[in-house]
């Protein structure tokens, strides 16, 4: 990693490394084409591809100037000093005022007191629901302030067989019945679990800044976890693992066979192609206090960039109101620019979801996950364990113990933002 300050050349285009589906990349291309200077979009298809590209090119000494990354994964680059701090440039900028952006997103990209990257979006978890189906079965719609129990009752009421009758599809009921409609879809992972743990007044790690272990053994966390796995084990309102493999939750929702789905803003673009029914979003249910989880991506300037000033110019443009509007048009993101997020570019009623404001309302209560350098590994390890907990009914004590034991070495190896 060589942090050379070699002279900027005007003619070499700024390289921006992003990943996404073709439509998403198309939005970035629009963004670039509306920018006055040449920018080369370096495209990857998914996160793995992007990481492979980024890592090899940094190691090989010719990194792209800019890349876009989620705060959950940028830690490992931040800790290794691969990202250029932006404080000075922000301070000197005439375009960007940090106050224009949601602080929670800005804070997520602070590392040892420095602003490393600048967020382009701020999303959170919401409950997508099939409004038409709810109306058909005359079940009350989810609404703000509803509780976990409400979620459970709703989900139970929406789990129906072919004839529309309510059924219970838990293994304990024995029957090999397959619901035609499932009440709820949720992915067993730490990022889905976390907001409920927080809502229950507990925490997932012992120290949000310098975590050393997962604390899912605390009573609050344990309850949230138990309730999560009970969705499958006790009530059978979420599809089994076989069913998920046969048809993932998003497809199931699109096919009108899933009443509710916990997901981030990401799913919106897919769901916009739905023609068969009406759908909308609702806020997360709560235990004791409202809590949400931050999903945010940011532009980062690589330390090894040869073209920092030009790159910064583009970065400025991209997260400025103008740039964010272009990206917001895809529907995929919740703009991090406060003004843009409240503008019709985001809230515009032309496209579903009607209650897009749910995403904005959640922002004050969202929290970020710890940004330790080994977080990607921790997510992967916990994912497997939680999956087994949900689908195979591993004993809760074992699950919690495993989660703790297997993540400890990862925390031990971790480097911290502060």
């Amino acid at each position, binding site marked *: 990693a060589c942090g050379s300050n070699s002279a900027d050349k005007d003619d070499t285009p700024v390289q921006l490394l992003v990943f996404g589906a073709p439509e998403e990349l198309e939005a970035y291309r629009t963004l670039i084409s509306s920018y006055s200077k040449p920018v080369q979009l370096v495209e990857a298809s998914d996160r793995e591809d992007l990481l492979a590209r980024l890592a090899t090119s940094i190691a090989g000494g010719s990194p792209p100037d800019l890349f876009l990354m989620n705060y959950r994964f940028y830690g490992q680059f931040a800790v290794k000093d691969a990202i250029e701090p932006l404080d000075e440039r922000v301070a000197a900028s005439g375009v960007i005022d940090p106050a224009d952006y949601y602080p929670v997103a800005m804070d997520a990209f602070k590392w040892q007191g420095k602003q490393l990257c600048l967020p382009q979006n701020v999303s959170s978890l919401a409950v997508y629901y099939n409004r038409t189906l709810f109306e058909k079965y005359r079940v009350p719609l989810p609404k703000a302030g509803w509780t976990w129990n409400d979620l459970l009752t709703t989900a139970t009421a929406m789990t129906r067989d072919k004839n529309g009758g309510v059924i219970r599809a838990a293994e304990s009921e024995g029957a090999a019945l397959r619901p035609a409609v499932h009440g709820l879809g949720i992915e067993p992972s730490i990022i889905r679990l976390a907001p409920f743990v927080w809502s229950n007044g507990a925490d997932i790690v012992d120290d949000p800044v310098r975590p050393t272990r997962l604390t899912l053994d605390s009573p609050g966390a344990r309850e949230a976890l138990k309730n999560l796995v009970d969705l499958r084990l006790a009530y059978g309102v979420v599809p089994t693992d076989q069913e998920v493999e046969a*048809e993932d939750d998003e497809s199931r929702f699109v096919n009108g066979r899933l009443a509710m789905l916990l997901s981030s803003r990401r799913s919106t673009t897919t769901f916009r192609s739905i023609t*068969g029914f009406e759908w909308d979003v609702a806020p997360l249910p709560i235990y004791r206090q409202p809590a949400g989880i931050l999903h945010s991506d940011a532009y980062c300037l690589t330390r090894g960039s040869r073209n920092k000033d030009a790159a910064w110019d583009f970065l400025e443009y991209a997260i400025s109101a103008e740039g964010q509007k272009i990206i917001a048009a895809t529907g995929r993101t919740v703009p991090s620019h406060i003004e843009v997020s409240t503008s019709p570019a985001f809230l515009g009623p032309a496209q579903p979801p009607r209650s897009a404001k749910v995403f904005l309302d959640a922002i004050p209560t969202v929290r970020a996950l710890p940004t330790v350098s080994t977080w990607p590994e921790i997510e992967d390890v916990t994912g497997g364990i939680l999956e087994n907990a949900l689908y195979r009914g591993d004993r809760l004590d074992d699950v919690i113990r495993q989660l703790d034991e297997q993540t400890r070495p990862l925390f031990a190896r971790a480097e911290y933002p502060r």
Partner: protein
Amino acid sequence: MPARWWRTLGAVFVLLVFVPPLVLLVSGSLTEPGQPPPPTPRLLPEPLSAAGYEHAWSLGSLGRATLNSVLVAAVAVPLSVLVAAWAGFALARSSRRLVTVVVTASLLALMAPATALLLPRFVIFRFLGLTDTLVPLIAPALLGASPLYVLVYYLAFRGLPADLYDTCRLCDLTPARTWWRFALPVVRPVTAALTALSFILTWSNFLDPLVYVYDRDLFTLPLALRSLSVLDPTNFPVFLAGAVVATLPPVIVFVLAQRWFLRSESPGRQLR
């Protein structure tokens, strides 16, 4: 003859096992995109639609990517075959010691996982200023596409009757001319097979372009296909259309190469 019928029966069985997945691939690609994905593939999509291909063409810039892939293959495949055939021939005419060394090295090379080579190769190509060009994608041709092919050629050349090599030596042929005039034509089935295989290998190279090529205009088909693979589930026909497009050239190449398999001049009949 009954043996013939058994063969036909077997061939039909092979067809029954191997073809259906590909039929599903094609029929899937002809489904109308934007529909909720059917949980189970249908043999005859309803309605039939070529929209998947249109989308794939525009979304994935398949045209450009195909062009690049063809360009790479057009240079890399002949080069691969040439290098492999040369090396295999040279090995067949080399001393035991050299053969042992090279074969061992080739096997070691086969053992190197692609992912373990990405980074050092990147450094090399960057040093040579070749990143973000198509050269790194052609470079594996220097290996004959795969060391395996060199070894296959080696075995093929070694199996030719010694008297024929001796005849060439008597005529004072240089090794290169012996190779060109005698050895290569005689192992034509092998060449046909390896041409088809190195085409497939070159054509489906994914990791190299992923790491060495930034410029979208230089993307090859596997990369374009990769980008289609992250489309929404509703757009699966678009992805499958891309897959069909990407599969077609290898099929054509193989069908062409197959003719050469059958037209072999086996040296066996006059081996004594």
